[in-house]
């Protein structure tokens, strides 16, 4: 058939044409979005708010676990000695415990001293003086070396201490820390559930936006099919639009999360200073922010993929 010479030569190589086509569509779909700033912004804002909520909650939760990890490290074992143990025996036990590998620090609370302190602090001074015998035992407080990866070490140490013959009871009071961790765990699960639901919401929002977009561009789709546009070619601008919604929503969600953390930080610092702590809220780390944006981008692409799959095949030229 008489075609102009070089018709094929003027075409780029398939791979280059493919890449050029993608780059062109990427930019063009961004251009389309910026030409309707109000509606694009609203879609992006909806995505951002839906994602900022769980990510903000996760940041707060991470901060809470960060604080409580410090408490875990301050675990302390109280070793109550048998009432028959003399002060001398107690002191030699302290020396012995000091040599233990798993022990950071040992100190002793003398029972005479303890009674004195108790009577002055509690205000039961008269009642206590009337006691014939000091009811308190000597107490040794043991600061174990904490290896967060080996919680079994502390339990092992506790067992060893309980087996010593002068020891009545060695007690590790970590129950409340465990409860706190359990609560944090529940909170974390709750946040993941919220995040999943809101993630689905984002998927639907993007899907619906793209669906409307497809309907508005029906004419363009028909014409493109008639002049030889492949399904992939027609799909592409919509997928990239979803991609941009995702990226925009992710960036905006990051901004919202950082702003909210910034607003809370002042009050948290004030509270921390009341506890003589230099604690500061930590916002999203760079890698967390990147994951947030990547997740959002994934949702944007996913939403548009669903819409395109469902609605593009309905449009055929007639």
């Amino acid at each position: 058939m008489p075609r102009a010479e070089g018709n094929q030569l003027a075409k780029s190589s398939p791979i280059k044409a493919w890449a050029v086509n993608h780059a062109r569509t990427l930019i063009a779909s961004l251009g389309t979005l910026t030409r309707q700033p109000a509606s694009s912004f609203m879609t992006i804002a909806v995505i951002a708010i839906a994602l900022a909520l769980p990510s903000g909650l996760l940041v707060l939760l991470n901060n809470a676990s960060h604080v409580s990890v410090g408490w875990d490290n301050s675990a302390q074992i109280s070793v109550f000695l048998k009432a028959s143990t003399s002060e001398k025996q107690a002191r030699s036990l302290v020396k012995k415990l000091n040599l233990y590998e798993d022990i950071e620090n040992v100190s002793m609370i003398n029972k005479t001293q303890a009674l004195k302190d108790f009577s002055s602090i509690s205000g039961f001074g008269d009642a206590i003086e009337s006691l014939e015998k000091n009811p308190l035992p000597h107490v040794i407080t043991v600061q174990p070396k904490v290896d967060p990866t080996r919680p079994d070490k502390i339990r092992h140490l506790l067992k060893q201490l309980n087996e010593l013959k002068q020891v009545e009871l060695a007690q590790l009071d970590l129950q409340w820390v465990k409860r706190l961790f359990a609560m944090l765990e529940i909170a974390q699960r709750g946040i993941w559930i919220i995040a999943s639901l809101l993630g689905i919401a984002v998927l639907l929002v993007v899907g619906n936006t793209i669906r409307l977009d497809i309907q508005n561009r029906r004419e363009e789709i028909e014409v493109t099919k008639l002049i030889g546009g492949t399904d992939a070619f027609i799909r592409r601008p919509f997928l990239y639009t979803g991609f941009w919604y995702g990226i925009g929503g992710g960036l905006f969600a990051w901004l919202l999360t950082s702003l909210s953390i910034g607003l809370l930080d002042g009050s948290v610092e004030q509270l921390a200073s009341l506890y003589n702590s230099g604690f500061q809220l930590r916002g999203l780390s760079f890698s967390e922010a990147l994951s947030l944006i990547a997740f959002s981008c994934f949702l944007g692409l996913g939403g548009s993929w669903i819409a395109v799959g469902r609605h593009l095949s309905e449009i055929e030229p007639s």
Partner: protein
Amino acid sequence: MIRFDNVSKRYPGGHEALSNVSFHLPRGEMAYLTGHSGAGKSTLLKLIALIERPSRGNLLLDGVNLSSVSNSKIPYIRRNIGIIFQNHHLLYDRTVFDNVALPLIIAGFQHREIGKRVRAALDQVGLLNKEKADPITLSGGEQQRVGIARAIVHKPGLLLADEPTGNLDPELSREIMELFARFNQVGVSVLIASHDLDLIKQMGNPVISLNQGALEHNGLATAGESEHA
């Protein structure tokens, strides 16, 4: 180029739009397709453009049997066809240039090449100075010519036109038909559906006419039986 071999098209409702149509449009030939509205002209063009599939019979385009073409191959077959519609089907959200460039973008032409070819196509239809215009600001005849520029910009082997002069006055209609004749002179096969019998007579090309879905007159019967599609 186009060979219909006992082609019938029955729509789901039972209406038979084409029955046992056979003809052969040789490569490089230009022909008119006439008939009353409802005679099956549009259906015939739709079968060639793969918008519809034949219910019976064989339809060969450039040697390819269109009855057995898979859906994923359709775009590539359409790229060798330029289609011109009565109502232009221009996209009003972009300039004349971008409308005409669409087939080249789809086919993956290089940027510089696109500019060159779009201007050449616009020059051929006499609209070179309108490349930056919005299609909506153009007259009906000008819009039709933009549609033609879009149909020929990628140098297809076949041009199909469905009532391209339907909304135009006689003088503009004649200009459009002469434009098609010029493309035909450089070797493009052309099939134009039209009911403008006076104009067709003036142009002097073979005529195929349909009546209620059946072939009534085949002006191509003697023209190109020697050539194979």
